[in-house]
């Protein structure tokens, strides 16, 4: 109890001090513009958090080298680690929201934690970039097509976009399709949207939908069901490591039907886990980031990344061309930061309502993944045209993703 009291006192003290300092700071023009976020910096999902953190840092370096925004440098004011545990995201985000000197925010790396904090963010009203969560309800609480939360913008591939993209392609070629999803928000919404998309594109299509838990070590039961339904192709919505388990399992069962994965599957953990078995796996991913030769704005980012981290795990196996999943892990953070800074510059102030108004007027801003455009009704940017299909191919002794047709 004494401990609690001391804590209490120190908290009140800190809060009071923070308040006055914040006020004093706002008066000075050269003070940095601060952004804040909580994400998985450690723990099993840290590649996502670490990735977008790097993206934001590289973007900030670029902006500050060019003199900052409104004559002020940008800095990361608060960066907290939630390991993608929803309760921890909530506590961290509340702490960040308490800090009134923070101008802009970024959402956590996954759909669950993001959904847990999104109402809090919406109630707060400060401009918020969502770099990675794919569930559409993060942005559009009443589903895609509805009104977006006014202050939240997504830079990730929204599940509905990806689902439409894959569904159309699949429905064109196959009438019997096996669909597997991980039992998370991402997997479930993804597969439901794909199912709907396939049904819309081809009324006669038969879809067998099964689910698995992340980190399941054996998927025989699910695959047997897909096989029994005489599916001509298998599409999985999930993450790379599980995808490798599925691929190996298919091989053991001598299942040779074409294998498709969501963006989450076309990632380094899949190739590492599945090895040569990955060859022939197809799926959708960001297009622009892996386009050869890269667009100037993409090249600038890639050069900066390579100078700082080299062609590392997130970059992929080809030292010249980054793997497309880098668009999701790193570039969404980079683009999000650049677009926000641009909006602040256009708004001429860091005041939330003005920045949001400027965000809503974003048009043709060239980022690494697409040309960004937001309106008061549309808060996502990546569209079907910004995705493409890739296939794993063994080239010079290593697995690489090459653009392909389905």
């Amino acid at each position, binding site marked *: 109890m004494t401990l609690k009291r001391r804590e209490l006192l120190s908290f009140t003290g800190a809060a009071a001090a923070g308040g006055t300092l914040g006020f004093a700071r706002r008066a000075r023009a050269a003070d940095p513009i601060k952004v804040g976020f909580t994400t998985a910096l450690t723990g099993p999902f840290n590649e996502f958090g670490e990735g977008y953190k790097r993206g934001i840092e590289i973007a900030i370096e670029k902006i500050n080298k060019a003199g900052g925004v409104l004559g002020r440098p940008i800095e990361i004011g608060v960066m907290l680690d939630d390991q993608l545990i929803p309760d921890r995201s909530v506590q961290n985000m509340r702490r960040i929201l308490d800090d009134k000197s923070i101008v802009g925010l970024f959402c956590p790396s996954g759909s669950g934690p993001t959904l847990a904090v999104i109402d809090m963010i919406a109630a707060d009203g400060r401009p918020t970039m969502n770099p990675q969560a794919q569930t559409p309800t993060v942005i559009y609480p009443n589903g895609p097509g509805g009104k977006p939360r006014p202050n939240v913008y997504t830079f990730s591939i929204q599940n509905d976009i990806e689902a439409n993209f894959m569904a159309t392609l699949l429905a064109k070629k196959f009438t019997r399709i096996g669909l597997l999803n991980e039992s998370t928000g991402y997997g479930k919404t993804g597969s439901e949207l794909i199912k709907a998309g396939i049904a819309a594109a081809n009324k006669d299509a038969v879809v067998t939908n099964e689910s*698995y838990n992340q*980190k399941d*070590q054996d998927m*025989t*039961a*699910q695959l047997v069901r897909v096989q029994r339904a005489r599916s001509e192709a298998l599409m999985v919505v999930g993450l790379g490591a599980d995808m*490798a388990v599925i691929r*190996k399992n298919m091989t053991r069962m001598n299942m040779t039907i074409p294998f498709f994965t969501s963006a989450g599957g076309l990632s380094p953990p899949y190739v590492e*886990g*599945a090895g040569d078995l990955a060859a022939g796996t197809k799926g959708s991913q960001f297009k622009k980031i892996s386009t050869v030769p890269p667009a100037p704005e993409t090249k600038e980012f890639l050069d900066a990344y390579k100078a700082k981290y080299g062609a590392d795990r997130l970059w992929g196996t080809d030292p010249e061309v980054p793997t497309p999943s880098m668009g999701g892990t790193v570039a969404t953070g980079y683009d999000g930061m650049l677009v926000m800074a641009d909006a602040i510059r256009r708004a001429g102030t860091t005041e939330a309502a003005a920045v949001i108004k400027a965000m809503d007027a974003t048009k043709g801003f060239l980022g690494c993944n697409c040309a960004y455009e937001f309106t008061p009704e549309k808060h996502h940017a990546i569209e079907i045209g910004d995705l493409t299909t890739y296939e794993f191919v063994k080239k010079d002794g290593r697995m690489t993703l090459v653009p392909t047709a389905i």
Partner: protein
Amino acid sequence: MEDFLTLLLAGVSVGAVYGLIAIGLNLTFWTTRTMNFGQGSVMMLCAMLTANLIARGWMQGLAILAALAVIVVLMVFTEMYTVRPALKIEGSMGWAVSTLGVGIILQGCAALWFGSQAVAFPDVIFSAVDNVVIFGVHVSLQYIAVVVLALALVVVFELLVRGTVWGRAMRAVAMDQDFAAVIGIPVRAIVLGSYIASGLLAGISGILVAQIGGTVDPAFGFELVIFGFVAAVLGGMGSTPGALAGGIVAGVLQQMVGGYISSAAQHGMAFALLILILVVRPQGLFGQREINKV
């Protein structure tokens, strides 16, 4: 029919590994009425070390032996510095927290050394493409190998427990520690031995499961140990054949429910079976009814 056989084989194979995990949990439960809550991390560490050493160019057998050696050292440490002190404090449940703590430390270390992402586990005996066709059904040699290895281990283990002085001493400790100490059995060494053996079984199970799944990451093992618990209770805590049978029942049930009813109900059904057994036959399929000692 082909579906059925495929499901059966996968179920038996995964279930046999559950059984191995369960036997490992049983061992320490016999000797000290404790269980290593960090057992999942032991599985993980063994598999990750093996994968890492092989990736560095070690011979497979050597890599496995080296990983198991590390596990032995680790279990000695666990027993001496976390379980034994915690057991001195009667009724504190301290062992649950301290073994869990060691498990979390291992997870942290593995993330630090090998990264927190999944790493590929090499094909040790067969690869996923190795199939034989029996009666027109494709049977994966990987599954067969896992089943054979697991069964062989259980047989060797039973022979050791039944046939050797150490095995008998361990059973005496399991019956009554005080009495065992009085008749001159080195109880502390037996308890330590049970932890080492438990760790070795976990480590080998880790390698076997990694063989099936193909990847390991620092959080690997946690869910598997839960099924180890299910297997141990299904078979009756303390019974080795029971643990194996419990594991296989759980494994096959999972596949059958998943394959014929719903893949969403796959895991829930295994846990429901656990509850059913506890309600209907708490001593498990093979366990003896406990008699209160007064």
